[in-house]
């Protein structure tokens, strides 16, 4: 039996802790399951599995050397005394721009943005409705004095109420319908691109790229069928549709930790990177040991050296440029590219039995002109 390493045990323990926490919140939020809808128990267990899976994978991911370092650095930079105010000021703008608007996807492609934005908001809306209902965190009650109204209870506490037949009531009760419209529209745009774009066609994979779209579509369309069944078809095939819908949702929940959906949980790291870059720009710059030009923040270069060492790379350049602690990371990307040409040139010089020079591509024109005087010499000999 393979032995479990420390990372796996830690990730497993964190997964179990997160699962127990959500289970406890379900028990508390539903007032000891008093408001828990037993018909949705399948969803609950699928969600608990997803919580375990997501936490486990997230924990394993955070323990990779580069992720661990930038996770730590991101928080250090954000809360550093001289940057905290600027970070707090920049934070809301970045959250809105990156997460609410998806501005970076908008700049990549308008259609990709439309697809992502519709799917994202559709899923967020659906999740905000479904999970609290499944967990029994939200339930509705009719006040004793007014049968035409519903009161919303959150975690068992009464909040606002609305008239059943009102516009607000219609909006609230059909929240999942509106969410499915957003998701289906987004899935259609994304699917069209995947079926027509030759670049996407070359690199896409079924499990990674198609399956999430198919699952989102299946969840949305079967959900809409349920609404259609009870609204216009007197509940025709409702039980069957309810089972199909539940199967789609449960499979999607179980798939959350494994496939493309996991990016939902990884993506917030983008914020940490933005603050890390802010600190890098205002800090000391790393200077290329070859061309003496600044090319990146010193903090970033030094962090990268730590990461590379942790990963087992050894880009140290002993004795390089008179610096005993030389490291290839201190050579700028452009000089690295040029060095390839020079290294190949030197090898060819050696192969041709010539003197190996530092800059083999540089031709001494004067030397080349020497043979030009050869005819004169030949004449002399003649």
């Amino acid at each position, binding site marked *: 039996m393979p032995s479990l390493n420390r990372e796996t045990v830690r990730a497993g323990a964190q997964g179990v802790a997160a699962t127990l926490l959500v289970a406890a919140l379900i028990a508390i939020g539903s007032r000891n399951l008093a408001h828990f809808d037993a018909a949705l128990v399948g969803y609950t267990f699928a969600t608990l599995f997803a919580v375990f899976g997501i936490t486990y994978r997230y924990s394993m991911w955070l323990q990779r050397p580069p992720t661990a370092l930038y996770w730590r650095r991101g928080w250090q930079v954000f809360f550093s005394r001289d940057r905290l105010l600027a970070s707090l000021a920049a934070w809301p703008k970045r959250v809105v721009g990156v997460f609410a608007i998806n501005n970076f996807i908008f700049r990549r492609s308008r259609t990709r943005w439309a697809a992502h934005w519709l799917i994202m908001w559709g899923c967020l809306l659906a999740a905000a409705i479904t999970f609290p209902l499944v967990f029994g965190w939200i339930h509705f009650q009719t006040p004793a004095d007014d049968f035409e109204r519903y009161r919303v209870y959150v975690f068992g506490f009464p909040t606002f109420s609305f008239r059943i037949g009102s516009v607000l009531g219609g909006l609230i009760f059909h929240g999942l319908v509106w969410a499915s419209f957003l998701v289906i529209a987004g899935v259609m745009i994304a699917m069209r691109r995947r079926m027509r774009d030759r670049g996407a066609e070359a690199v896409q994979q079924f499990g990674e790229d198609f399956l999430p779209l198919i699952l989102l579509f299946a969840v949305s369309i079967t959900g809409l069928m349920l609404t259609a069944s009870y609204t216009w078809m007197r509940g025709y095939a409702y039980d069957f549709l309810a089972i199909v819908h539940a199967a789609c949702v449960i499979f999607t929940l179980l798939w959350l930790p494994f496939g493309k959906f996991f990016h939902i949980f990884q993506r917030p790291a983008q914020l940490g990177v933005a603050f890390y870059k802010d600190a890098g720009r205002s800090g000391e710059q790393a200077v290329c040991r070859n061309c003496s030009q600044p090319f990146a923040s010193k903090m970033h270069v030094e962090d990268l050296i730590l990461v590379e060492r942790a990963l087992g790379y050894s880009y140290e350049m002993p004795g390089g440029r008179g610096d005993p602690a030389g490291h290839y990371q201190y050579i700028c990307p452009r000089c690295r590219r040029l060095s390839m040409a020079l290294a190949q040139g030197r090898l060819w010089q050696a192969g041709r039995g010539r003197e190996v020079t530092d800059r083999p591509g540089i031709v001494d*024109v004067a030397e080349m002109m020497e043979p030009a005087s050869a005819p004169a010499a030949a004449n002399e000999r003649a």
Partner: protein
Amino acid sequence: MSVPSHLNFYIDASRCIGCQACVQACTECDTHKGHSMIHLETVDRAHSTQTIPVICMHCDSPTCAEVCPADAIKRSEDGVVQSARKPRCIACNNCVLACPFGVPKMQVEFELMMKCDMCYDRSSVGLKPMCASVCPSQALFFGTREEIEALRPQAAPIDRFQFGNQTITTKVKMMGPKNVAGQRPKHIDVTAAMDEHAPPRSVSLGVLNGAR
């Protein structure tokens, strides 16, 4: 789809004439439409016409992928290191700074790293990558080992590179001499000449100064 195993990429920087055809052709590739992934570098513009086209060498153990905190760079089974996965890349710039060959490009506007993927839409169906299809001097060559051996009888493909203490092996091969002092060169030492400052070299331009 995957790149057929009998086809490979051979790069010979010493044959590059700096015509920029590869740079233009690269933008035509469907996997990175409109964006050229090639770096065509002029080594020392003041003293030389030497240029080098830099494409991804597709390392067997890609440093760019290893240092990626978001796990966004994947190497497919045929050995091609793919461009960053769009949903994952968080534009941290680690890959750009870590790649020993200086290949990945950060598209700041898109918050996305993009790199040469050997024109995967083409190479995965056995076609030449765009750059290799237009290179007039065959500095960039995509084909079989037999073809390159027939074209360059004096040269041998090398896929090991030395960066300080680190050896990197790659899918893409660089052409070097078949024989150096009676031996076949085992690797290209990229950092060897960085040990000492290159001495300032006075190049006497005979054409301008009058031939000696």
